[in-house]
């Protein structure tokens, strides 16, 4: 028999909680500044310590069904931790290591930007490391038992290991240095390969593809030069039209469909233009074409169709309905 979550919370915050505490229910501390430590060998159903700014480590011997510890300053997780269903460490930007042979149902490591590697022997059903931009490779030995694998924004990943051979869904968005997949990989659901480095899938021809969540035919991913402006204008589904626009390139599209310039002026990046493209049986596409002052890259951002001037459109994009209020002192 354990004690109630409310009683356990009182003991823990007063610093009088004994070791080997067994707690029934959800032990909820989200955002609690007073929480500085938890007793060793704590057992509970769910432990929620998200956004606790003064908690810097989890206790030795922690045993729980679910641990939610996102947006804390954890640097590591104890070797002795046991989590059955879900370990969520989203936004732990100081996290640098996890225990070897960590076994858990779902492991969420979204935006753990300091994490450079995952532990050897990792054993999970679902893995989400999206935004782990320092992650350079996956373990040499590990197991994902048929669930979802989200590698979105893992920009340093260059290859996937051969043990990753059976997954339901594989999200590779933004994995720009990933050019091939293991021949042995079988994906039962879909692969999202938007902005990844993959330009063909010779061994995975039948796998349904997605581009930022939108189901697409392989041609859209692998042969964007075949997309025409006319085809885009005739695409009924707005989301698919957006993907085709993106793949063709706004600049190519606007040139091909003969966009009208409604207004033009200058900002910190150089010339900017307000463009209009009439779409058949749809409202006009009006967009502001701007150049980033830091990177010189061109961006086209769609604005409400009633916009009249480039400055009005830039103000609207920045969140100002009144253009007079948009007067940035510095733009980079």
């Amino acid at each position, binding site marked *: 028999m354990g004690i109630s979550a409310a009683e356990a919370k009182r003991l823990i915050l007063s610093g009088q909680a004994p070791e080997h505490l067994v707690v029934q229910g959800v032990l909820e501390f989200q*955002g609690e*500044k007073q929480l500085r430590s938890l007793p060793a060998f704590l057992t509970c159903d769910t432990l929620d310590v998200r*956004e606790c*700014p003064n908690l810097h480590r989890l206790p030795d011997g922690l045993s729980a069904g679910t641990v939610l510890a996102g*947006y*804390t*300053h954890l640097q590591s997780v104890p070797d002795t931790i046991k989590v059955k269903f879900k370990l969520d460490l989203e*936004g732990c*930007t100081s996290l640098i290591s996890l225990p070897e042979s960590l076994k858990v149902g779902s492991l969420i490591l979204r*935006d753990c*930007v300091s994490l450079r590697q995952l532990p050897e022997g990792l054993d999970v059903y679902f893995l989400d490391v999206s*935004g*782990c*931009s320092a992650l350079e490779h996956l373990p040499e030995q590990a197991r994902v038992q048929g669930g979802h694998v989200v590698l*979105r*924004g*893992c*920009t340093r990943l260059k290859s996937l290991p051969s043990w990753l051979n059976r997954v339901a869904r594989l999200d590779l*968005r*933004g994995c720009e240095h990933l050019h091939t997949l293991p021949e042995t990989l079988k994906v039962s659901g879909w692969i999202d390969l*938007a*902005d990844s480095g993959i330009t063909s899938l010779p061994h995975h021809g039948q796998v349904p593809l997605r581009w930022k969540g939108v189901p697409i035919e392989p041609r859209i991913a692998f042969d964007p030069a075949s997309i025409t402006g006319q085809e885009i204008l005739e695409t009924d589904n*707005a989301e698919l039209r*957006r993907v085709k626009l993106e793949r063709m390139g706004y600049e190519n599209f606007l040139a091909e469909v003969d966009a009208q310039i409604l207004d033009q002026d200058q900002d910190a990046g150089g010339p900017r233009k307000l463009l209009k493209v009439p779409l058949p049986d*749809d*409202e006009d596409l009006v967009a502001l074409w701007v150049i*980033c*002052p*830091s*990177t010189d890259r061109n961006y086209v*951002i*769609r*604005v*409400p169709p009633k916009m009249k001037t480039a400055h009005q459109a830039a103000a*609207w*994009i*920045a*969140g100002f309905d009144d253009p007079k209020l*948009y*007067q*940035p*002192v*510095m*733009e*980079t």
Partner: protein
Amino acid sequence: MLYRHGDVLIQAIKTLPRGAQERPGTILARGELTGHSHRIQDPATVQLWHLNGEIFIEVKADTALLIHEEHKTIPLPRGLYKSWMQREYTPQEIRRVLD
């Protein structure tokens, strides 16, 4: 005083809104695809706050440097700021600009 750092807007404010909660870390926004982030360089110079999905910056030093892998650095003087993302229009919804 308004600053634009790529797709992030920063505006000086006089007071923090009531109910704002401390937010760990120094990241204001992270690129969905690139993994690059708009963030304050030195954690000792700021305390971030959040309320209803909005982020507020308390610059506790004379200057805090707003950095990003691709955008030039903006020095923010001591004070309070509100931070938000650019928006874009689609026929279905108005949403934050996705980068």
